[in-house]
């Protein structure tokens, strides 16, 4: 099978009669900003959930929306949701489509509400250290705008070039520098959103009485509202960065060193501890950027012969995960990457203090190179999935979080549970005083496309089951979508009634992104 499968538009079901009526009504209000074209609907049918990529490789299309609308203002968002509500049409808020959990699959059709035209970024308030931005702005554009004003948001998810502020809010995103700046929910001062009632909701800024309404909306993945704007905390652009890498004799010593750094009041911007297998892979990267040639411009050798070879080889490697996982379990040494940033003298002192702590915890100083290398290649991970898919395999990631006392147990149990299904590696990042996130990467291959999909589902059941039984939450920053919906309901227990109550309150007709979060 060719890695670039053609998809027949004949597979795309026609829009429903209600949707066509809505498209007509919306088209009159927003000429040129409403589409029922098949290629638009196919484009908005999915995010980067690897399961969708497996489907596409099979020539299958995830369920598409009936139409796509591009509002420009909050008032238009409210009008569109109002029209959808009148007609009983689902609304799927859509940012840049970089989610990895199927959060935008239009399982009941409806309107894909692309918010990227809401892209205004205000001026930084230098006293309050805040900025207001609309939800459709692409992350990298927002950060660059802030940099030009002399500030940083400090939010650098690996999807920063292809994710929006609204997507970050909807999925409780975390950036690579969350150790210093926090997750997006730590940065939010207030939000504006349009609920499933079609009403604009503005959350208050401190000081306010009562519960924090913003925290009830963040992470709702479009099931309660569409975010239109947020006020965010910003920081002066860092004057200096300090880099340092350490090797530890095993995972346990590395984890303990990170925990100790936090106990001693240090807040590196970046903390990434790679498990032995991940260390071996990270150690091989040279930090040099090789321009990738677009598939259509590749030579016949690169376009056909190399992928053919890889497709034959991959089942013999990724297809035998149990054996290779056992081999990699013999590896021990772990790499810790630290980056400090901020004011010059403070940063230097923090880095010196961290060096002392890591040495005390048995770490060997690897100098600046590993951390600098990481910084140079930090967004490359987003582009590594395609080669695996081209080679006939699949890859995915699972990020969970727990407290320090359970971290090693979660690590070992997930590895053990996944070992029969996929290659597994892990890094520990997004650290807090009380715990951290564990970020597992899986890669597998072998068998027919249907068998691969079955393997994909089995590995996720095994991985999530192991993580939850060891005490981890089902997601630290990717969100839930369709992928983890069942696991979320299991995690919530009776608390699911509270979530369902929020749904009834903000979206009484159940039109907002149905099926996600188990709602």
């Amino acid at each position, binding site marked *: 099978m060719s890695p670039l499968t053609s998809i027949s538009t004949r597979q795309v079901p026609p829009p429903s009669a209600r949707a066509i009526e809505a498209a007509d009504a919306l088209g009159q209000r927003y000429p040129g900003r409403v589409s029922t074209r098949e290629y638009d609907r196919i484009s908005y049918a999915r995010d980067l959930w690897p399961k969708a990529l497996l489907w596409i490789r099979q020539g299958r299309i995830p369920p598409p929306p009936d139409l796509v609308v591009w509002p420009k203002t909050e008032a238009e968002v409210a009008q569109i949701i109002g029209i959808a509500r009148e007609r009983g049409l689902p609304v799927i808020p859509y940012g840049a489509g970089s989610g990895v959990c199927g959060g935008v699959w239009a399982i009941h059709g409806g309107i894909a509400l692309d918010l990227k035209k809401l892209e205004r970024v205000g001026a930084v308030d230098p006293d*309050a250290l805040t900025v207001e931005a609309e939800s459709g702005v692409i992350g990298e554009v927002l950060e660059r705008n802030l940099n030009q004003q002399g500030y940083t948001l400090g939010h650098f998810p690996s999807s920063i070039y292809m994710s929006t502020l609204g997507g970050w809010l909807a999925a409780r995103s975390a950036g690579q520098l969350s150790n210093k700046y926090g997750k997006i929910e730590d940065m939010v001062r207030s939000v504006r959103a349009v609920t499933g009632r079609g009403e604009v*909701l503005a959350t208050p800024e401190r000081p306010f009485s009562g519960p924090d309404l913003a925290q009830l909306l963040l992470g709702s993945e479009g099931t309660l509202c569409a975010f239109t704007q947020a006020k965010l905390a910003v920081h002066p652009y860092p004057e200096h960065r300090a880099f340092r890498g350490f090797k530890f004799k095993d995972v346990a010593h590395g984890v303990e060193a990170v925990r100790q750094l936090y106990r001693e009041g240090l807040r590196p911007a970046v903390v990434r501890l790679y498990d032995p297998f991940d260390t071996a892979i990270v150690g091989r990267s040279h930090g040099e950027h090789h321009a990738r040639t677009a598939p259509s411009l590749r030579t016949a050798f690169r376009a056909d012969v190399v992928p053919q070879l890889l497709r034959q080889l991959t089942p013999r490697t990724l297809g035998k995960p149990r054996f290779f996982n056992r081999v990699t379990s013999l590896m021990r040494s772990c790499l810790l990457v630290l980056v400090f940033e901020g004011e010059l003298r403070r940063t230097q002192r923090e880095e010196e203090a961290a060096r002392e702590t890591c040495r005390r915890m048995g770490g060997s100083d690897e100098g600046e190179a590993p951390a600098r290398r990481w910084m140079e290649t930090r967004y490359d991970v987003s582009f590594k999935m395609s080669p695996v898919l081209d080679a006939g395999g699949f890859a995915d990631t699972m990020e969970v979080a727990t407290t320090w006392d359970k971290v090693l147990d979660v690590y070992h149990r997930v590895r053990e549970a996944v070992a029969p299904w996929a290659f597994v590696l892990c890094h520990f990042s997004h650290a807090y005083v009380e715990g951290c996130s564990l970020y597992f990467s899986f890669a597998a291959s072998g068998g027919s496309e249907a068998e691969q999909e079955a393997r994909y589902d089995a590995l996720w059941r095994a991985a999530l089951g192991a993580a939850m039984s060891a005490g981890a939450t089902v997601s630290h920053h990717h969100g839930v979508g369709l992928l983890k919906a069942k696991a979320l309901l299991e995690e919530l227990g009776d608390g699911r009634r509270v979530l369902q109550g929020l749904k009834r309150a903000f979206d009484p007709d159940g039109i907002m992104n149905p099926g996600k979060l188990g709602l």
Partner: protein
Amino acid sequence: MNDALKLALEGQLGPRFRLLPDGRAWLAPAGDAELRMVVTQFHRFGEPLFAHAELYRAALGGIGRVEPASGVVEADAGVTLAAIDRAAEPHGLTVGALSPKAYALELAAFLEGPYQGLRPVLGGRLEPVCLALEAVLPDGIPFASKPSPRSAAGPDLDALILGGEGRFGWVSRATLRLLPRPELTRRVVYSFPDGALLARAARRLLSAGCHVRCAWAQQRGGRALLELELGGNAECIERDLSTCSNETAEAGGRASGQVLDDAPTGEERELSWPEVVRELELGGRVALFRLSTEAVVAIGAARGRRLVNGQAWASAGAWEVLAATLGGPASAPSGVGE
């Protein structure tokens, strides 16, 4: 309050039920099961518990073992923050830099009430002191969240209970995240041309990650004075002093040898930084706690949000809808939308 409900509660609680002079009930459940029973009875009779009763949870008074690696501890609703802090001390941990009144509160009151369960953390941010909650929902069903440093598993449902004054759930127990207890503290005084520059410097040094435990501010001789109490190990304090001196200079301030007047007294209020500036401009002096770049808890302020239950909530419409859909009281909460 419904007579039948009074009879039912009296029958089941005995001396742990009393009627107060204002007609409300005083209820002191002996444990989790009785707390659930009380909430269920109110729900059955369609009466909003928060409006008709004072729920006294001192009998829920246990503190669990401090888990030393993660620095977390489970505590029951009736334990004071001060008691939890004392339990954390031998492990070199603390509940955080809170205001005097917050330390004196029972955990349930701290979490459900106007303090919203918040404490300051590095970077000028606030975070809930609880990692996870156990509570009884308005219909008597228990609720428990999963302890995790952060999560993207849907919205933060604990947020409904924090600051909710019992309208959406009553806390029975919580897992609390503790912070390293400072080994040393050090005070330092800076002088600024005016209150606005003082506030700018304060926010910037909080944003930079300084460990400020509390502060005092006042206007004197045409200048605004700020005294900071820094906490941490010796290295932390040295780093913070260096940052403080930079940020202060950036805002036109300088170190000062002046001694501030005695700490102000009075009730605690939550103030935005512009409100702090206004206090100083009007000649006030304030003690500042729970400092973040967003807001502070102050003693000595004449303005700002009073930290007492029953204040009007913002976004009133949203809360009315939520109260109606979450098994809460049949009528809209009395304090909402005032």
